[in-house]
């Protein structure tokens, strides 16, 4: 359940919750696209703080915002190692006359062995930036789901002319998540009560051993889906899909338009400052600061 809770909507009365759902979607793009354009850790840190501020404004605790990042640890470790070893920022920044500043090797030279894993200031700064980009996109995406209810998602999408069948399917899928999770737990427990246990580290073997849990899960999902579809039809779904109305009517207020204007301006500025324009938010910004501190040319 804990993983499911990460992506569930949290009802609050906050200025962010009160925004039109379309504006919330725009917020997501306005705050994640800069993370694509920018590569500099300092700029990205500022962006991350901005996202956290929105989370706090939406009455989420700092702990609730940051704690789920633990789940990203494996991806972050992979990202930082991959960038250090295999993906230098070649061609992006430092002019050809100035070489990357080597600060050491991961595996030092021992006799005729090594050295391996060249560590440069540029690589390190770039890798930290790459890590931050992932953190920013994940945090913003998760926050979007905590302050946008599945119904609002459906409403926003229907305004973008997505067919009602699809928007309802999304809304129902979210509403039904807790039931699905509970179902899976029951199936695992029912099999454990028959002496079932996975005791292998071999992933192929483990997959085969999981069959007693996978098959009932699939079968139960199908039968449940049938009941659910019957229940949805029995409530008149499909009566006149084109003219289906809604309890909540979303309308953009003046405040929404102001926020939209701000987000669009921010988005435009971010793209100009990023690698698509002035390129001042590139990794070189921090790299130069570090090099100056170390009295190296920049």
């Amino acid at each position, binding site marked *: *359940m*804990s993983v499911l809770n990460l992506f569930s*909507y949290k*009802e609050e009365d906050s200025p962010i919750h009160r925004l039109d759902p379309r504006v919330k979607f725009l917020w997501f793009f306005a705050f994640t696209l800069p993370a694509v354009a920018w590569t500099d850790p300092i700029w990205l840190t500022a962006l991350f703080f901005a996202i956290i501020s929105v989370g706090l404004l939406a009455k989420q605790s700092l702990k609730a915002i940051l704690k789920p990042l633990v789940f990203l640890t494996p991806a972050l470790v992979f990202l930082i190692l991959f960038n250090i070893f295999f993906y230098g920022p070649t061609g992006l920044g430092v002019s050809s006359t100035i070489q990357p500043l080597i600060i050491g090797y991961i595996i030092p030279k021992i006799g005729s062995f090594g050295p391996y894993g060249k560590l440069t200031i540029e690589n390190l700064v770039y890798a930290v930036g790459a890590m931050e980009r992932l953190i920013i996109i994940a945090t913003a995406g998760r926050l979007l789901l905590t302050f946008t*209810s*599945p*119904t609002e998602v459906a409403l926003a999408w229907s305004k973008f002319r997505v067919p009602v069948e699809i928007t309802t399917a999304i*809304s*129902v899928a*979210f*509403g*039904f998540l*807790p*039931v699905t999770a509970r*179902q899976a737990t*029951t*199936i695992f*427990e*029912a*099999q*454990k*009560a*028959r*002496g*079932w*246990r996975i005791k292998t580290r071999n992933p192929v073997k483990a997959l085969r051993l999981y*069959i*007693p*849990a*996978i*098959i*009932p899960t699939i*079968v*139960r999902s199908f*039968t*449940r889906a049938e*009941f*659910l*579809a*019957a*229940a*949805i*039809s*029995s*409530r*008149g*779904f*499909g*009566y*006149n899909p084109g*003219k*289906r*109305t*809604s*309890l*909540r*009517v979303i309308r953009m207020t003046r405040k929404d338009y102001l926020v939209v204007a701000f987000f669009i301006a921010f988005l435009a500025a971010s793209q100009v400052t990023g690698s698509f324009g002035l390129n001042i938010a590139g990794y070189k910004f921090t790299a130069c600061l570090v090099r100056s501190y170390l009295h190296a040319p920049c």
Partner: protein
Amino acid sequence: MKGLSWKYEGSTEDAIQGIDLEVAPGEVIIITGPSGAGKTTLCRTTNGLIPHFFRGDLQGNVTIADLDIRVYDVPVLSAITGLCFDNPSNQLFNSTVEEELAFGPENFCLPSTEIRNRVNEGLQISRLVGMEKKSPHSLSGGQQQACAIAAIEVMHPQILVLDEPTSNLDPIGTTLVFERIRELVKTEKRTVIIVEHKLEDVLPFADRMIVLSNGRIVADDKPLNVLSRASLIEGMEIQVPDVTRLAYKLMEKGINLDKIPVTLDEGIEAFRKILSHRIVLPKTSLRNSDKKPPMLSDRISVQCEGVAYNYPDGTQAISELNLALREGDFVGFVGQNGSGKTTTAKLLNGLYKASKGRIKIFGEDSSGKEADELASIVGYSFQNPDDQFFARTVKEELEFGPKNKKLPPDEIGRRVREVARDLEIENYLSHSPFSLSQGLRQRVAFGSIMTLEPRVLIVDEPTTGQDYARAKTVMEICKRFNDTGKTVIIISHNMNLVAEYCNLIFVFRRGAIFMSGSPREVFSAPEKLIETSLAPPQITSLFQALSSEFDLPRDILDVESAIAYLTG
């Protein structure tokens, strides 16, 4: 309905056949009958799910308010017939209660102000005012079903069809739902069709009662006329209210009552009359005694000492649990949903680990043992057999447990043969478990625990969603197991069955044992029991109500003892 028959695709037999039925506006009809009689199929024709949603062969005609179900699809017919299903969790699919109630009116393209009015109306009907922003799945079972009924009711259908609306509910939930239905019948004068086994709750407001068997209508009359057909009722194993059954049994012995009672109050009135006129003379020498399971020993099988359990989110589920069960005990865990019965059972078989205290199974501390290790000592049969089936054949399902225990093939073969014989499923060993009827599936699920040859057996809600006959079958299997000296624990809401089979009852409330004792001890303290919103069997309540006036015993637990007591 004229000459209505329906055969599901892939089935060789008609689910319902030759149904002729006319329902007048404003009528309240109860449909009952054994499982598999075709009750749900009949309901599905009332809003067009049959023939538009389910595939099969339809014969005859059905018109709902002059609309032919062959011509009009489900969304159109659902504007006339509101159909509510048995399991609330399968029909609530929105994120909040408010959205759940709005879903129907939104489909019928009502303006948002009208939808808001309907939502408010639904909140009133379901008594969920203040909970509109909650997830429907976070509500109690009774509240969920009340929400599901309200979600149908806000569509303002002319006909309301309720298919076993309380079969998955605890006693509080059942009362809540029936109160809502009674209000709708009384205030709205709506046509209502209710499929229900708990006749005691619905008979008082029904105009007609229909009994279905093998897809045919075998009785269709005023409720008391149907109930008076003793051979029919007994043949169908319909659970007739205790006071009604007692009245008919007395009539067979030549003692006539002015009016056949159905509810407890009617029963008190009717029996007060015959007792005060000395029409029957109770045998005051007859006294009840506690029944004792045949193989009950003094050896402790399960013991809990100061056990507490907290859910992963920190909520306390069990606090300070102390109990000791003997080998050969037939135990009933009763209480409302969320009172801690199932959590206790899962602590006993190792699925949950106690946060505090000690659990001893046959004298051995079970704290270090996982569920899979304890499985062959404490067997746990889950409520729904479909939660565990995965194999191609029944035989493989039965072999699964012993194979997990790495037993030799000879031993596995012996156990499968013996269990299949005991449960009378030998002829189905090569069948797919998915192709069997619900009753057989339950037996196979049961058998797959029995092949582990546990010394303690826990059966979770064997009576929920079952008709009386099937519930009794499960109880009889448990009894046979108990007769061999094993400890059996059943978790149930059916007080009649608990009173009939158990020798020891634990009443749970708010994560602790509130009271315990023999059925006589527990049920003869109704003033204490009521604090847990449970009630003794109806016959016990009848005798208790009249005990001081006529010196009747307070511990009569079944109709047979009542008759023996009253007539000798």
